[in-house]
């Protein structure tokens, strides 16, 4: 590590954190406008063009609100809980690659903050760390409804983590690596019938299971059991107000973002270009023979894919009704877990026969 590496690392971290922080207000806006349009309403359209500054106004409101701490809470844990749910959400994005490495003057520049050789396991462990914030919030609130919400949330996240882990095992077997950069790089070649070698085509069942489990992991509808106005008042963030509540909101949206990033990296080809784009790129590179252009194309592809998955989160939320709690558990333990095990077996069989 010399100075250039440090500067490059710092730049990446700076830009990543800045982008992650920008995504939250934009996603809140997309969620509110999207839901409104689906319900034949217009949604926030007064503040700024198309209501884009509404989230900014909300942030200002959150910052200037009085921040009372209820008298009956466990002070330390109560204050720690929003941080603990927010920080892992930021940290997970460190291993997700958003472009292939570039070589400039004999030096390799990677486009992910850290290409850990245990990338996938790091992501899984951090994802389960996010549960602690929710448990802490519920426990420290000393409120039975918050407690029930956090209990629900933690049991839901832990049961769906199993199915998620087994769904990922299929991918690990296929690409024989847990380095996310390598997994994404291996998806660049072509598969049978001219399809790209993306995870979704090799592991359709695994993709479906992973998609369902990330909905449960991020506590989004149709699995938003931790929050329930009618039975739990609000959920684990019942006793939180102003900026602390906003931090839980941010954690939810950042979790969505990392989950989409993971889905894209594992199953939708990561930073690999869309079919057809490579020829366009090489056509442009006749005049601009530059590697930077390739990086930009790859970043654009990654961004478009992530944005689409984020939109699917919003889209599904306003389409499907909620599950009942027993239905949720039944789906997790009796359907998704056996299916993911079957997926592992079938993948092993296919790999053994040399078909994929």
């Amino acid at each position: 590590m010399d100075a250039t590496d440090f500067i490059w690392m710092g730049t990446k971290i700076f830009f990543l954190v800045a982008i992650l922080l920008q995504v939250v207000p934009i996603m809140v806006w997309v969620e509110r406008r999207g839901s409104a349009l689906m319900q034949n309403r217009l949604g926030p359209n007064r503040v700024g063009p198309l209501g884009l500054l509404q989230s900014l106004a909300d942030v200002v409101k959150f910052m200037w609100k009085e921040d009372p701490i209820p008298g009956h809470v466990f002070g330390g844990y109560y204050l720690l809980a929003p941080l603990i749910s927010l920080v892992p959400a930021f940290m997970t994005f460190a291993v997700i690659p958003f472009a292939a490495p570039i070589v400039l003057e004999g030096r390799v520049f990677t486009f992910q903050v850290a290409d850990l050789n245990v990338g996938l396991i790091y992501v899984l462990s951090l994802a389960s760390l996010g549960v602690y914030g929710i448990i802490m919030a519920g426990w420290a609130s000393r409120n039975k409804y918050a407690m029930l919400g956090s209990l629900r949330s933690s049991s839901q996240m832990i049961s769906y983590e199993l199915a998620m882990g087994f769904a990922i095992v299929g991918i690990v077997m296929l690409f024989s690596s847990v380095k996310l950069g390598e997994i994404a790089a291996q998806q660049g070649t072509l598969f049978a019938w001219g399809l790209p070698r993306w995870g979704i085509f090799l592991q359709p069942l695994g993709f479906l299971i992973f998609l369902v489990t990330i909905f449960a992991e991020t506590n989004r509808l149709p699995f938003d059991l931790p929050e329930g106005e009618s039975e739990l008042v609000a959920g684990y963030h019942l006793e939180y107000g102003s900026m602390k509540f906003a931090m839980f909101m941010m954690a939810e949206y950042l979790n969505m973002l990392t989950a989409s990033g993971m889905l894209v990296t594992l199953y939708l080809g990561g930073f690999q270009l869309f079919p057809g784009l490579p020829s366009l790129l090489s056509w442009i590179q006749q005049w601009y023979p530059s590697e930077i252009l390739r990086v930009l194309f790859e970043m654009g592809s990654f961004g478009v894919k992530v944005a689409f998955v984020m939109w699917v989160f919003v889209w599904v939320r306003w389409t499907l009704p909620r599950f009942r709690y027993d239905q949720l558990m039944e789906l997790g333990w009796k359907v998704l877990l056996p299916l993911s095990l079957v997926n592992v077996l079938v993948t092993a069989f296919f790999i053994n026969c040399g078909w994929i």
Partner: protein
Amino acid sequence: MKMEKKIGIFSKILQETYVWEILRGLGITMKNLLFSRKVTIQYPEERRFYSDRYRGVHYIKATNGVENCTACMLCPTVCPAECIHIEAGEREDKEKYPVKFEVDVLRCCFCGMCEEACPKDAIKLSAIYEMSTSYRQVYDKSFLLEQRGGK
């Protein structure tokens, strides 16, 4: 024959796992998002249409600048909310008139019975419905006389 059976199993799986139904639902929400008519009324610029019979802010009709009211006390008598207070006086030409005419809008239930009871067509309810204030408003005579809305 074999082919048909395969399709049957495939469609059964789609049906049992609700995948197809979920996709159809997503299609419906997307259709709503893109093509449906939005029902929102952009309030300060756009207004909902109310009929002429709407009962809003009170006003007193006047002819040639003199209020029609003769302080006959029919409206405070009929008022179920007891929100109208009139003090009668005498004019130069021996005609009775209201010295004080107050409507306590906070008590008013906008039933319109004062309007029906009035023999002189003096008290009326206009179609104006924006009457929010930051204090406890009591409409006095001068306010009521500003011919609000020509119902």
